[in-house]
């Protein structure tokens, strides 16, 4: 598995017996390939991380210096003026509160409702289970932009226009989360339910004390995915909120850039950096879960 064994001769006796001038013992050529590959990958990584580093570093320049060239990619002597300034220009606390409230409630709502529905589809028997599950799956294919006009009307009709609930309620039923939780529950042995019923546990009790505790990791994936998506969401808040007191972070930042034009980049970027912090935390602690969740259902 390691590079050293690859160059060791021990494992290659069949090839050597053929007497061909194989490439693998040729150390020099291999390392050239390796070097080119690493350089290309490093360029790609620099292009990916460079803009983010520039954003961080520029937010830490003083507003008057922020648009000066050459650009800065590392904050050697950080200046926090812009961070003070962005709090004056923008009601950051309110934006963060709104975003956290919307995102948090959607995440919790999705975790609970998806776990319940997923469990019903996986372990409870009722008529029409297959058909209902197909309908749930089919709704995954409908883009949000197509349903947004009727949803907007519906929200108006419910008297919820321009409230945070308008963002939260429609986002709670989740087809993908339900699908994910169903798969998760199916991965847990059915014997557990049998054992519980032998012990005289009701179906509710079986779920509550046996399956739900075991399903926490799956629920965490649903929650992290919901958090990542809705924290960054722009399209629905743009349509469903009107007054600034109901804006979420992305909306507030875009309107700040609009208001400031190109006046002081560092102030806008300070806001952008602040908005990235929760995503960064998720990235550091939940990367694995996020990757698993994003690619779930695409495998073979």
């Amino acid at each position, binding site marked *: 598995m390691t590079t050293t064994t690859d160059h060791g001769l021990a494992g290659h006796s069949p090839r050597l017996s053929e007497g061909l001038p194989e490439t693998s013992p040729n150390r020099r050529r291999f390392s050239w390939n390796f070097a080119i590959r690493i350089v290309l990958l490093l360029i790609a990584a620099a292009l990916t991380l460079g803009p983010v580093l520039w954003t961080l570093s520029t937010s830490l320049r003083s507003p008057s210096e922020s648009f000066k060239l050459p650009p800065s990619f590392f904050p050697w002597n950080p200046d926090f003026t812009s961070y003070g300034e962005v709090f004056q220009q923008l009601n950051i606390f309110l934006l963060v509160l709104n975003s956290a409230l919307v995102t948090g409630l959607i995440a919790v709502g999705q975790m609970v409702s998806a776990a319940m529905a997923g469990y019903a589809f996986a372990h409870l028997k009722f008529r029409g289970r297959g058909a209902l599950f197909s309908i749930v799956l089919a709704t995954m294919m409908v883009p949000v932009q197509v349903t947004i006009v009727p949803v907007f009307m519906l929200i108006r009709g419910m008297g919820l226009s321009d409230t945070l609930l308008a963002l939260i309620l429609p986002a709670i*039923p989740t087809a993908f989360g339900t699908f994910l939780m169903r798969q998760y529950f199916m991965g847990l042995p059915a014997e557990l339910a049998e054992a519980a019923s032998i012990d005289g546990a009701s179906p509710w009790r079986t*779920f509550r004390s046996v399956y739900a505790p075991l399903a926490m990791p799956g629920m965490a994936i649903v929650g992290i995915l919901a958090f990542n998506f809705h924290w960054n969401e722009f399209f629905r808040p743009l349509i469903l909120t009107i007054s600034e007191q109901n804006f979420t972070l992305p909306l507030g930042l875009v309107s700040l850039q609009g208001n400031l034009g190109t006046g002081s980049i560092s102030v806008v970027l300070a806001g952008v950096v602040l908005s990235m912090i929760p995503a960064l935390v998720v990235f550091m602690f939940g990367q694995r879960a996020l990757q698993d969740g994003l690619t779930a259902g*695409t495998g073979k």
Partner: protein
Amino acid sequence: MSTTTRRLAGESGKRQSGKRAVGETTTPDANAPAQHQPTAKSRQSQRWLAWIFLAPTILGMGLFTLIPIVASVVLAFFHWDIISAPTFVGFDNFSEVVQDPTVRVSFLNTILFVVVAVALQLGLALALAIMVQEKMPAWLRVFFRSAFFFPLILSAASVSIFMRYLFNEQFGVVNWFLSLVGIPAVPWLTTPGGSAAVVIFVYVWQNFGFSFLLFIGGLASIPVETYEAASIDGATGWRKHLYVTLPLLSPTTLVASVMAIISALQVFDQPYVLTRGGPGDSTRTAVMVIFESAFQRLEFGQASAIGVLLTLIIMAITAAQFRLSKRFVFYQ
């Protein structure tokens, strides 16, 4: 990329929870077999619990997804501006929309965008995935994978905000780098070609990591023996990838391309923040026209008609891809 579109590939492991055929004899209790047969009462309580558990999801989806889908289709045949009562206009919305030059340009832009952005996204993701999966120290691989995944966790709006500064004509970093090699300042966001290039770049920058993840998963599932067999047959370097990797990776490529296309067809955040569709209509997309006709011009019927057209295009492309896949996708 919107979450709804990522998930089409549907059900993977359709595992049956199954009835237990063996192992019953291990139960020491003599009464056990009798209790195993679910009683009528227990079956009924299961049914009750199922409906209670399903209620939030089913009612929510009915209200916020199924009814809106139907309403959207119905609304496409009405003229409605919220203020006055809706009037039935038959196919008028569709014929107006199809003849509207802005709508036409936007759909054309969207299709061009999809072709270029998806090709770049998949090509880049595949090349990088192959390079990352070959031999290298584990920590370096973790670094590259994290780096390519990172943009996915950012909001498209925030990314577009800082990219707008990076591509600024006078003080943008991109033009500064170009000036180092003697290229005069490019008016990125004020010319049609420049804006289109920037929108494509920003979109691909943020989304290639998702296809990359899918390809990494696909590559990991190719058995090592196939490569060993290929190298015994004399295949090396890129030939190995052409004759072994690509055919064996084709199921992943299908899923990755379907997802990338559906998501790209719905592009909105990047052009909205970067260019507002301009200059002129040069970066206006299908979803931007839906947004504008509904929420700026209050033409809800027309907006629905455009939405219905977009959905039909998405469905047609998906169906076509799965049909084509029968010929080109190689399943082991």
